[in-house]
């Protein structure tokens, strides 16, 4: 089979997260990815999409923002790409929670900072590219 690319556009609103997860699950299922691989991919994309919607649009007061999701199905890989035109933001540059923090009791922890770590650890490859003025967050799952 050749590669397929499906493109979707969403409003920058948290209500779209469920549809994003459903679309990824559907395509992953159709192409033979495991329940665990699909769950982890939806989790990674959900975390970063949440950050884009909250920090890129809602907190900036941008009311009618939209962003795109591309689901690319290749012979050996499933790739999801989130493309947004909000302020440039490279999640790979952010400091991840330290081992010390991860061992800190919950009552002493700051609320937040876990999403990017979860995203990085939940897919085979998590990349960021800034292309033609847009943030591209790229999630790669290799076919096992």
């Amino acid at each position, binding site marked *: 089979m050749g590669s397929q690319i499906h493109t979707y556009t969403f409003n920058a609103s948290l209500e779209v*997260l469920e549809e994003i*997860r459903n679309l990824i699950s559907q395509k992953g299922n159709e192409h033979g990815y495991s329940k665990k691989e699909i*769950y*982890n991919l939806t989790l990674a994309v*959900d*975390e970063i999409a949440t950050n884009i919607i909250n920090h890129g649009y809602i907190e900036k007061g941008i009311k009618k923002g939209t962003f795109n999701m591309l689901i690319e199905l290749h012979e050996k890989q499933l790739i999801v790409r989130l493309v947004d035109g909000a302020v440039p933001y490279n999640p790979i540059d952010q400091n991840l*929670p330290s081992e010390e*923090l991860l061992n800190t009791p*919950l009552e002493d922890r700051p609320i937040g900072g876990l999403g990017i770590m979860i995203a990085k650890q939940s897919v085979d490859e998590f990349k960021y590219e800034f292309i033609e003025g847009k943030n591209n967050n790229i999630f790669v799952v290799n076919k096992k």
Partner: protein
Amino acid sequence: MDFTVVSEITDNIATVTLKGSLDSASASVFQEEIQKLIGQPIKDLVLRVSELSFMASAGLRMIIFAKQKLGSAVNIFLVSPQDQIIDTLQMTGFIHSVHIVDKYPK
């Protein structure tokens, strides 16, 4: 799947049943439920999650919120979480601060 949350308190034990997908859109519903529990004499917070199909970091933030608002002496139990949710608890170190059990009470 739609998120639903139902809670009750009996004998200082707060039982909260979570179903569906807990993401950053639905976390506020869970937060409101936790806020109802603040100030009540609670020994154990029992989260029934066998039908929770998805939990993002927004859900983890609510567990931190519960621990901080209800007091660090409150024990938090997660009853029958799905494997993928256990993986997330493991990855983030939450596994050390909550009790994962098959049923409650034992």
